């Protein structure tokens, strides 16, 4: 079964540093998403991306965040200057254009900001 692949699985970074989280969505999917889950809390929507542009973003997704699909296969989330409160599990997801809106989630990247 096709998978969404995320790398790295765990990243530790110092406060103020930039991080890039990488995702390889399923190849024929067209909609891409980032979600995050702070430890012990619910999964929160960050951003959706379609046709090479952001289609929706949450309040969490401020100017410190950006997304890119640089080469037609990778889908990246960049945090420009990390804060302690950015520590969370970040999930990438992708969806095809079929009307059943089925999502596939990646296994996540655990980001720890120290």
């Amino acid at each position, binding site marked *: 079964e096709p998978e969404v692949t995320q790398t790295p699985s765990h990243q530790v970074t110092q406060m103020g540093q930039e991080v890039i989280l990488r995702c390889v969505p399923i190849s024929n999917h067209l*909609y891409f*998403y980032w*979600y995050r889950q702070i430890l012990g*809390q*619910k*999964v*929160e*929507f960050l951003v*959706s991306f*379609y046709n090479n542009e952001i*289609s*929706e973003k949450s309040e969490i997704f401020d100017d410190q965040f950006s997304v890119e699909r640089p080469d037609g296969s990778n889908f990246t989330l960049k945090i420009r200057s990390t804060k302690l409160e950015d520590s969370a599990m970040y*999930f990438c*997801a992708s*969806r095809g254009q079929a*009307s*059943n*809106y*089925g*999502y596939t*989630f*990646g*296994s*996540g990247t655990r980001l720890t900001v120290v």
Partner: protein
Amino acid sequence: AQSVSQHNHHVILSEAASLELGCNYSYGGTVNLFWYVQYPGQHLQLLLKYFSGDPLVKGIKGFEAEFIKSKFSFNLRKPSVQWSDTAEYFCAVISNTGGFKTIFGAGTRLFVKA
């Protein structure tokens, strides 16, 4: 805005007990509803989904859910739980806004005693 409410934050059951986890959603129009499971240390996995048709939906691992439109509910059930069902369960709905983001409930932590 659409929202999802899960009634129980923590549930403890013995093996072979029956399970019902409550979920209510706020939107009155056409909805696409999901239950996801997250085993300890793992990523989100889709248990089952409802788009239309038979309101009783069967998923993987013996789980089922019933869509009751009049009650705005989509409760998850399993007749007999196993220790391996220990996990966190998230009810979710696809937003009707552009981007089709997933809105998650706060989750229910299920612990099954052996």
